[in-house]
């Protein structure tokens, strides 16, 4: 550890420098505090940073970056660290972790253009809570860990979650970003490119004038700069809502319905429980009453008017029947939509979670589920106290998430679980899947398969924007 080999004097000099920028209460090098930042919500073993800082504004971050650069320290920007891909775990030593959760303000709500500009450290939960007081909401409502997950964290890691069926993932909803670059300079993307603009007109479109600089920083896993503000699209809170769950005896039929719903943009959200085990785990009531069901899709419709929502629900019912679906109630759809960020936590008692979240075309979902069952059969999951849930969420247009998660109850079975977990990821990525977030979860699988020309291009971007690799070194295995 480089810092441990430093003289006390050098260490004190760094501490004093950081303290001058953020004040004594907003940074720490206490070991126990550093260790509390060593992990995220993934199962990967952690690695504490050397300093943790709670910056309060963009200017402080700019100063910290310049300070880090001049002292050969790296910068790891993090949000609520509720991600489950290991994306925020430090890979190298001599790092300053920027915990942005104190930068949690709504800067402005523009009801003319229908955008909200927020500091990057605001959680999705708080954003939704505050917008609701203005009868407004965001399209993408946040990842499942959105109580702690921040807007900045989601934009850095391409997160997918609630509202994605109609509105796409987190990054699909961005109009503009404020980013602090490796030399400490601050840029605003989209229509924020002008040197001077009236504040009210600075962030109204993403695509204009130049190429899309916003997109460069989305999904960068904190490797290209520190996102300090984001402008997102907003919508009025829907007046009309409708919920309905359909049960199926085949994943093929269920997938056909999902595809139809997405092609015709009928729903706000459509979420699948993909096998009997998953139904038993998350919706046991349905399992008891309808043991023959192998798949359930929960549908949520939000519309300006209740009659429109009701009519769409009727269309969904009619179509579901054509695909052999049966209307069974509203338990799953209501639990999914109303519990929002409190849906998955009750699964924790099954043991720690090992996820394989990724994206895939809807029509490839049945095959994946069948192959997954073959894999599970091979490894005798239940007798080995390894449980699982298979779910999927229709996303953007006609693709979906593949959420297959393993739960380990008995820690002594971890080697077996690691083996299954690895094979499952191989299966998914080899069969039309792509990760949305990468992190330690997917990085090796991705880098084995990346087109060299593609990788060389993003490597060039990295070296151009962050020539000394200050930001989150080690991620994507970029080389200077």
């Amino acid at each position: 550890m480089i810092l441990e080999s430093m003289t006390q004097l050098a260490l004190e000099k760094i501490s004093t420098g950081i303290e001058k920028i953020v004040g004594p209460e907003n940074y720490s090098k206490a070991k126990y505090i550093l260790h509390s930042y060593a992990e995220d919500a993934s199962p990967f073993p952690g690695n504490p940073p050397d300093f943790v800082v709670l910056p309060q504004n963009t200017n402080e971050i700019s100063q910290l970056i310049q300070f880090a650069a001049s002292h050969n320290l790296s910068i790891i920007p993090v949000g609520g660290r509720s991600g489950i891909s290991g994306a925020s775990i430090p890979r190298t030593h001599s790092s300053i972790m920027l915990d942005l959760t104190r930068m949690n303000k709504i800067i402005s709500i523009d009801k003319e253009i229908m955008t909200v500009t927020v500091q990057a450290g605001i959680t999705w939960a708080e954003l939704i809570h505050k917008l609701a007081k203005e009868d407004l909401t965001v399209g993408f409502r946040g990842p499942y860990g959105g109580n702690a997950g921040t807007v900045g964290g989601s934009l850095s890691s391409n997160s997918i979650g609630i509202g994605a069926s109609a509105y796409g993932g987190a990054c699909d909803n961005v109009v503009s970003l404020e980013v602090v670059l490796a030399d400490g300079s601050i840029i605003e993307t989209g229509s924020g490119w002008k040197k001077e603009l009236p504040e009210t007109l600075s962030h109204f479109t993403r695509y204009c004038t130049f190429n899309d600089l916003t997109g460069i920083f989305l999904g960068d896993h904190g490797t290209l700069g520190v996102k300090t503000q984001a402008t997102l699209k907003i919508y009025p809170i829907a007046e009309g809502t409708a919920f309905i769950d359909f049960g199926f005896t085949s994943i093929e039929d269920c997938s056909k319905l999902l595809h139809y719903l997405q092609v015709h943009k009928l729903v706000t959200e459509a979420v699948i429980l993909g096998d009997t085990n998953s139904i038993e785990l998350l919706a046991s009531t349905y399992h008891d009453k309808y043991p023959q069901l192998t798949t359930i899709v929960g549908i949520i419709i939000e519309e300006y008017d209740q009659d429109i929502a009701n009519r769409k629900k009727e269309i969904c019912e009619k179509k579901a029947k054509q695909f052999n679906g049966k209307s069974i109630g509203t338990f799953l759809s209501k639990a999914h939509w109303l519990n929002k960020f409190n849906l998955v936590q009750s699964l924790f008692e099954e043991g720690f979670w090992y996820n394989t979240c990724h994206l895939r075309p809807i029509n490839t979902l049945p095959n994946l589920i069948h192959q997954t069952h073959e894999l599970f059969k091979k490894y005798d999951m239940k007798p080995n106290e390894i449980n699982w849930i298979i779910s999927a969420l229709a996303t953007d247009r006609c693709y979906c998430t593949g959420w297959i998660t393993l739960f380990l109850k008995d820690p002594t079975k971890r080697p077996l679980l690691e083996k299954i977990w690895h094979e499952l990821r191989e299966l998914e990525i080899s069969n039309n899947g792509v990760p949305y977030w990468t992190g330690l979860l997917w990085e090796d699988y991705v880098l084995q398969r990346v087109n060299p020309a593609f990788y060389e291009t993003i490597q060039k971007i990295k070296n151009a924007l962050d020539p000394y690799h200050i930001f989150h070194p080690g991620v994507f295995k970029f080389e200077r």
Partner: protein
Amino acid sequence: MDYPYLSAFRSQMDFCGKCGDCALAVELTTAKKHINKPCVIKNVLGFEAYDARGRILILKRLLDGTLQLNQEIIDWAYTCLLCGNCQETCLALDNGIDLPSMMEAFRRDLIENGKYSPSGKPFEILEKTLTHHNPYGEPHDQRFHFILSENFPPHADILLFVGCTAAYRQQNIALSAYKILKKANIDFTILKDEKCCGSVLLRYGFHDKVKVLAEELMEQIQKSGIKTVVFPCAGCYRTFKIDYPKLIEMPKDIKFIHFSEYLEKLVKEGKYHFRFDSQTRISYHDPCHLGRAAGVFEAPRFLINSINNANLIELETRRNYSHCCGAGGGVKSCFPEISLKVGQNRIIEAAQNNINYLVSTCPFCKTNLSQSLNGQNFKVLDLTELLSQTLDESLTGTIIQKESSFVTHELTQNYITYLSQHPEIFSDLVPGSVLEFTIYDSIDAFEDEKPPTGAFHVVRLENEIEIHPGLADNSDLQLALSEGAVRELVLSKTKKEYSLKFGAFYNDPEEEYWIDFLLHKRTKTLLKMGYGKFAEEAGILDEDEDLDSLDDRVKII
């Protein structure tokens, strides 16, 4: 160093999914629970190390040797308020991950290994308590000097257990409790040799010492032939009710109840009349010891509502998700400046309500909140003080119970009667289940959290159900129904008909006919308790054919 007490929690730590809800959850995204950033210490200090997720990570790393104990960590151990809000918010297990017990166990390991916190406070307070029988180090023979001029009978059925804080620091609470009991001619006494219950020592980790205190106190109480012990202090109450049974065998013939619970009964008997001369806005702060720990939420609210001209304005975080005042868990004595910052945040929360009084039912809460007022123009009072000052000396025998409308409402009575004739509706619930029924005149009233027009709760016992008027202290879920829905439900001739209507009102709500739920426990826990089957029987899960036939039936009605 070994951590035998902490090690007992090692497997529970693995259930933490590191989601971060324990620090950052807010109301709208958690099924409308009244949560807002539950960890008040994290809210003040900012770093991850102070919330449950960070604390569990640190404790795990201490246990596996990745992190070595040092003075900073010993200090950190005493920064947790043990308020339990993180545990209440946590959905990983039926009752949440028990971080307060983990921190207490860690402190116990530290204490038993002679690891002193830098402030030395825990050992200083231990010495004071063992020497002077109170944590303040005040002379024991002066404990009741302010009240001993009153004549207390040598024997009585009721014992007022005053507690150290009310005896030495908040004497007006003790005097108010005395005045209120005297007003109704209650035959009560005090223990003239009352000693500290050991609450604060338990929180520090001195379990063995407290066991001795508990045995001595219980012997003293048993000898005096007392039948009911009444506590104006939430901390003492929690210690007797929750902690002592884990340390010693408790007598089965003595009841331990909080002053607010005891008074609720007397008010319902018509023994008091409370009145403000003009409209007065009051918010109630749930003490952690009384609310989250002991499950008493309704009695204080009932009493505030019973004061004529009092308007109870609920705080943003309340009941089981109430923010801690900042005084608990030994933090007030070890880190008073942190306690005040936490208290100031709670005061800011209360100030949003534009109130005249912030009322609590714990002398320790009152102390810290009063000290945190920072010039706000409302007063902090204990409930005993509020009731004492609104006690109408000129009137007796008139019961002012605003909540009584919950049961006098004819429709509510009809529904209660109907359900009492159909107890089989609740046959799938496990004994001990508590289901709250609330009836509203509009969906807006429900969503805006206006008072229901009717409320009662059903308690599932082993072989029967009990229906109680009013809201429940700690229900599993709140069932909300429109008046129209209830009117139709009570006309049902058969259970099948009831189920069909119930399912339709839930699945296809209309302006006049709707049913909704607010879950007070996590979904998985409720399913284990039989609510899934209950929902199925109630018609919430239904097949197309049933739904189609139901539409016709509802139209006919």
